[in-house]
């Protein structure tokens, strides 16, 4: 069976996407202007205005309302978000879920103070009322004026060919079933299989009191397979996830087979796993998902809100040497189709590749609008928010380390006793002390320069600046992780990605047992 999709196949199979066209322009009859584009992928600014039922004049009026108590700045973030999940359990595709949310968030800034409100009812009166609430953060006689709105065009870091709204649920079902059969076929030890597929589409219209108006279409999809296997009375469970801003072409046979194999292999490996010794030891981080080290050890601490308040361990380290000269770490919103790619940040700023560490020197924080003004620097495009219900904060996008001068093999050969950490479930950091952790789901012991027995379920804990300075070797095999990482901060989750070449840290504390 050919599992490679093309758009024509979808259109002829029919059925609906669960939540696809729901709440789209029918909502807005009576305030359309111009011609509606045939596909959401071709939407222009006017289509977005129609989609949300607003005009430039209405937006300018609401911005003026937001500034009516003397605020310095106001922005409006319209969002229509559609998400669908279809899932398989016990050999049946027996559940599907959808969610639609629609609304506008209104933010007013006065100095470093923020007023925020939102409404799920996009009418002039509701928006003005929310704007008045946000406006109350300010109390000054100065009145900023919004003179005009000029469109800011955005680049295309996630061009897709088929919008998810055109893919029906019964088109997705055979792929989940295929994945289920594939996972079972790979090992007789497999007892249970779970497969789920989620897609999400976000229509965004942004305008601010500096006169910027912009729109963006953000797709996302995530395919996960997990299994429980049983061997000699023992059970283990593990899985694999692939996620990105991609379309149905992602459902290729080779992709599905690869994900199924990863899920089974990573589960079976756990039966042979041993627990390492407790304590400090050299840790080799595999290329790819190990980028979680960067996300936790340095990324969060470089978010400029923590630094402008002096709370981060990195607050006094800009311009200082923090690592060997072969270490360069970036946070990059422009890497195509990664989860953290964004065409424009959620407060209207251009997105860039930001060097946090360049040749071992701490170079730049990750800024939102408030912090870039505080430091008097250009914004870095890191102002992000979970949805229209949330205010932007400095957040990471795709965080990775650039290639270094070493080879993976020589790195492993250099370790007498340590661990090779390969896959991870989660991480965390305390910003001020700088101690960060990440949980190794699976890896190997390294004994006398060779990877020997598998290990599993150990937490690693280290100190951000110390671990950076303890990076001894960096290989030339950088890989981005395709896992479905979601970064949490201040009660908001945003999609992010991360990556890294193979890296050796001379010592970190590894959870384990005491002899």
């Amino acid at each position: 069976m050919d599992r490679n999709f093309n758009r024509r196949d979808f259109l002829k199979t029919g059925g609906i996407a669960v939540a696809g066209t729901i709440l789209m322009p029918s909502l807005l009859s009576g305030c359309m202007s111009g011609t509606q584009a045939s596909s959401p992928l071709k939407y222009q600014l006017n289509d977005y205005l129609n989609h949300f039922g607003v005009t430039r004049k209405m937006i300018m009026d609401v911005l003026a309302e937001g500034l009516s108590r003397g605020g310095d700045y106001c922005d409006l973030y319209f969002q229509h978000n559609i998400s669908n999940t279809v899932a398989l359990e016990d050999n049946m595709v027996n559940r599907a879920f959808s969610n639609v949310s629609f609304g506008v968030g209104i933010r007013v800034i006065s100095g470093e103070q923020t007023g925020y409100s939102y409404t799920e009812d996009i009418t002039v009166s509701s928006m003005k009322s929310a704007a008045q609430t946000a406006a109350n953060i300010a109390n000054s006689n100065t009145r900023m004026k919004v003179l005009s709105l000029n469109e800011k065009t955005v680049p295309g870091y996630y061009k897709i060919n088929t919008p998810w709204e055109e893919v029906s649920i019964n088109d997705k079902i055979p792929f989940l079933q295929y994945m289920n059969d594939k996972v079972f076929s790979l090992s007789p030890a497999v007892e249970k299989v779970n497969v789920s597929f989620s897609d999400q589409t976000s229509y965004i219209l942004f305008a601010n009191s500096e006169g910027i108006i912009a729109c963006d279409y953000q797709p996302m999809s995530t395919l996960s397979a997990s299994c429980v296997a049983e061997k000699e009375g023992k059970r283990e469970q593990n899985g694999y996830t692939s996620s990105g801003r991609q379309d149905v072409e992602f459902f290729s046979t080779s992709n599905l087979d690869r994900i199924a194999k990863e899920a089974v292999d990573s589960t079976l490996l756990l039966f042979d796993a041993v627990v390492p010794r407790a304590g400090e030891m050299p840790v080799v981080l595999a290329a790819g998902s190990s980028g979680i080290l960067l996300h936790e050890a340095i990324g969060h601490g470089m978010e400029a809100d923590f630094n402008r308040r002096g709370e981060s361990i990195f607050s006094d380290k800009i311009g200082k040497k923090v690592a060997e000269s072969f270490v360069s770490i970036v946070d990059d919103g422009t890497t195509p189709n990664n989860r953290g790619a964004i065409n424009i940040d959620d407060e209207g700023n251009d997105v860039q590749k930001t060097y946090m560490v360049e040749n071992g020197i701490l170079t730049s924080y990750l800024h939102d609008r408030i912090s870039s003004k505080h430091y008097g620097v250009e914004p870095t495009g890191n102002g992000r928010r979970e949805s229209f219900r949330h205010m932007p904060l400095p957040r990471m996008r795709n965080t990775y380390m650039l290639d270094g001068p070493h080879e993976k093999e020589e790195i492993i050969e250099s370790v007498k006793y340590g661990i090779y950490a390969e896959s991870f479930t989660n991480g965390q950091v305390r910003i001020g002390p700088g101690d960060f952790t990440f949980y190794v789901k699976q890896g190997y012991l390294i004994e006398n320069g060779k990877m020997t027995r598998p290990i599993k379920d150990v937490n690693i804990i280290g100190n951000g600046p110390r671990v950076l300075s303890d990076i001894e070797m960096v290989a030339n095999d950088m890989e981005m992780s395709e896992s479905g990482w979601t970064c949490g901060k201040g009660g908001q989750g945003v999609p992010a990605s991360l990556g890294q070449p193979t890296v050796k840290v001379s010592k970190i504390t590894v959870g384990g047992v005491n002899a």
Partner: protein
Amino acid sequence: MNNKERMELAQWASNFAIKKGATEAAISISRSRAVNIEIREQKLETIRESTENSLSLQIYRDNKYSGHSTNNLKKRQLEKFISEAVEATQYLSPDPDRTLPDPSLYPSDTSLDLGLVDPGHGQVTPEYRIETAMETEQLLRQSDMDILSTAAYFSDTASEGVRVHSNGFAGDWGSTFFRMSASLSVMDAGARPSGSFFAGQRFLNELPKPTEVAQNALEDTLKQLGQQKIASGRYTMILDNRIAGGLLWRLFQPMTARNIQQKNSFLDGMLGKSIASKHLTIIDDPLIKGGMASRLFDSEGIAARRRVMIENGVLNAWYIDNYYGRKLGMTPNGGSTSNIIMGYGNRNQKQILESQQRAIFVTAFNGGNANSTTGDFSFGISGQLIENGKVVKALNEMNISGNFKTLWNQLTETGNDPYPYSSMQSPTLVFSGVDFSGI
């Protein structure tokens, strides 16, 4: 819209789904209004006001199942939304266990008042919120530690909603919640530890005073000064009642019917057997007046009742929802936790700590995870080294690791000090011989 109007809309939506071809339908409609205030340097840093509406529906169509939600409650839009949801459901696989709960599981009386709403909520003024947080933040600033930043927060939420099932259930609910918290960040020889405290209550007058909130945040910060790691080894672990819920939570996941049915629980096969030392008793009671997680019915409409989950170490019950209960042939008893009450001992935290010769008092978790299939766990921690009843060192950057099957058998004592600001009212817990990794 009030709950009466929501109930009418939910009945209409349920009928509409049936008209469109659903065999059964369940509808929830709710609204939540929240105000959040953040004070820094005696100034209002952030004010956020939000009102969130939600309609969720579960469709059962010839034993095929799907769930949907939207924040648009206009009937004209809902007609399209519900029609498409019902249509999409037909493509799924039929599953004989996909039905609404049997009506005998619904509460017979949904009018009982559990006291979950503070009637004074509507009278809370913006000035009160700001002044309370201002006072808290001012108290933090009086500390003689080398302060980098201070913040105090006040928030309150009022929610209400209804739930309707096409096979005869209709119930409504309302709740209020007030929250105060404080955090401060200080300079400490290159590190910048930050301490915090959080307290939540359903009734405004049950919240602690600003002095107590600030004092607790200051103490939390003081505990972190001079933190370092020490040698790996086996130590007695005293787990602060403020964070013990984080560990208990890991015990509840493998107790769900889903994880049993999916062979994803290290507790499978242990019903009626001992899984912990005799010091562990866990009672789940959703009917406590004013309780943080109290309810008359759960998210499937199933009548809430008191359940003794673990008694003197013996596992008594699973958390059984409707679907997985049917799959396992077990009567549903509610698939999720509510208020957790435990078996309490005779001593408070102070007395327990003073009686230790050598132990680690764990005051915070930092990341980590657990494997619900095997019981393996590994968590980052910080805390204090106790010797001869006294704090001798502040600790961080250490891990605890092991397996829950043995850890819960190493529970040697529970305190008499249930933590008041959480639905999980854990006391201080004492475990012997826990593996710590440090240097």
